């Protein structure tokens, strides 16, 4: 008897896994359709630019504090840890190169995307989830106002515009933080710090690639946040679950995309 019970429970498990996979794939399709619709109905976000401007304020400008403070500390830690190892090999002058390349190529886009997903992404998800729960989106449809054009698309473009800006600010403030630790605090030579950095950081290969990465991460994070909010069950619990899902899925997607993009960009 227990044998058939065991088999039955295993079979149930497998069925559950299959069901969940199918549902996730289905959700992916719905998300892709929302992405396409947000692009198609983007005209209004640019014709009535104040909509997008308002969203840039709430996603980009309000994230400035966390981005700047985190960048500062990340840069300082990079300089400290880097100096620790470099001076064993007598290359402590390369600390500028280390901080700049680490920030511009990888940490700038990725950490900014993670912080953006945590701060702006959750705000977007909660806002849209609540709009859906309080039936504002349905009310808009009743009034023949396209909710995607009015609500989703401006937030999408705001996220896409804000991310590269935030990533550049992150990189620059991080490098400044690294400079402040390396030169006045540790005593690395000022001229060597900047000249080695300039000799080894290429604008097209490093900085522009970092910008491309941050743009792609912006699209991914914003779209995930929008979709989770739009698709949340219209209850309080549903909205809170959707908010956590945004952070988790955005973080995983950003890290996976980072690997994919880096493997394309690192042409040896």
């Amino acid at each position, binding site marked *: 008897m227990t044998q058939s019970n065991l088999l039955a429970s295993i079979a149930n498990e497998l069925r559950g896994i299959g069901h969940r996979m199918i549902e996730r794939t289905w959700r992916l399709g719905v998300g892709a359709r929302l992405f396409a619709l947000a692009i198609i109905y983007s005209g209004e976000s640019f014709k009535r630019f*104040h909509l997008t*401007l*308002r969203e*840039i*304020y709430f996603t*980009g*400008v309000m994230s*400035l504090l966390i981005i700047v403070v985190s960048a500062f500390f990340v840069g300082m830690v990079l300089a400290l840890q880097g100096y620790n190892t470099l001076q064993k090999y007598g290359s402590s002058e390369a600390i500028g190169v280390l901080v*700049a390349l680490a920030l*511009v190529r990888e940490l700038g886009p990725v950490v900014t995307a993670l912080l953006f997903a945590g701060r702006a992404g959750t705000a977007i998800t909660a806002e849209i989830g609540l709009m859906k729960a309080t039936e504002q989106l349905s009310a808009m449809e009743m009034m023949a106002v396209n909710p995607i054009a009015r609500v989703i698309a401006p937030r999408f473009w705001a996220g896409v515009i*804000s991310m*590269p*800006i*935030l990533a*550049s*600010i992150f*990189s*620059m*403030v991080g*490098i400044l933080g690294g400079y402040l630790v390396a030169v006045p605090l540790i005593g690395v030579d000022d001229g060597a710090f*900047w000249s080695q*950095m*300039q*000799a080894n*950081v*290429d*604008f097209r290969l*490093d*900085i522009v690639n970092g*910008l491309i990465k941050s743009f792609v991460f912006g699209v991914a994070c914003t779209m995930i946040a929008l979709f989770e909010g739009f698709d949340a069950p219209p209850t309080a619990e549903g909205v809170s679950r959707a908010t956590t899902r945004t952070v988790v899925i955005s973080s995983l997607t950003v890290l996976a995309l980072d690997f994919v993009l880096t493997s394309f960009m690192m042409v040896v």
Partner: protein
Amino acid sequence: MDRTTIDLWVGIFVALGFAALLGLAMKVGNLTSSKIGATYSVTAAFENVGSLKPNAPVKSAGVVVGRVESIVFNSADYEAVVTIKIDKRYAFPADTFANIYTAGLLGEQYVGLEAGGDEVVLKNGDKIAKTQDAIVLEKMISQFLFSKASETDAKSEAKATAPSAVTNELKGGKSTEIGDVAF
């Protein structure tokens, strides 16, 4: 939050972003280097360019005067043809030496130009006749070992001519024990 305040803050935000990008480009990256500015192209043929890469610096007296533009293999005479772009402000005589040096002990390689004494200057499209290849570590090591080996050869040859002293003594009729001579 009224519209004008929002607009102001967004404007400041975007301006900060551009400033950061500009700072990155100028201070951190290489954008202000002599990639812009009039240059003329000159070619040089090397038997071995080592690890010279396109965009490596071309220096004369330690100052960067240009960049390596391209490196191609010439299958007619199995040499590497390096095209370098030199800043138009600097004129080099036609018998300039082009050498490949390494910056630091194991650093990146660059092209060093040493001016000759010719009055005719290099023009766009000219070819530098006198070149010196990059140093290949394996060749240096094998050269060193070869010279060491020929040194020890010379020493053992000197040892081989020493028995003439013994035969001289024997010829002189000095009676010595064979045992003393042989060992």
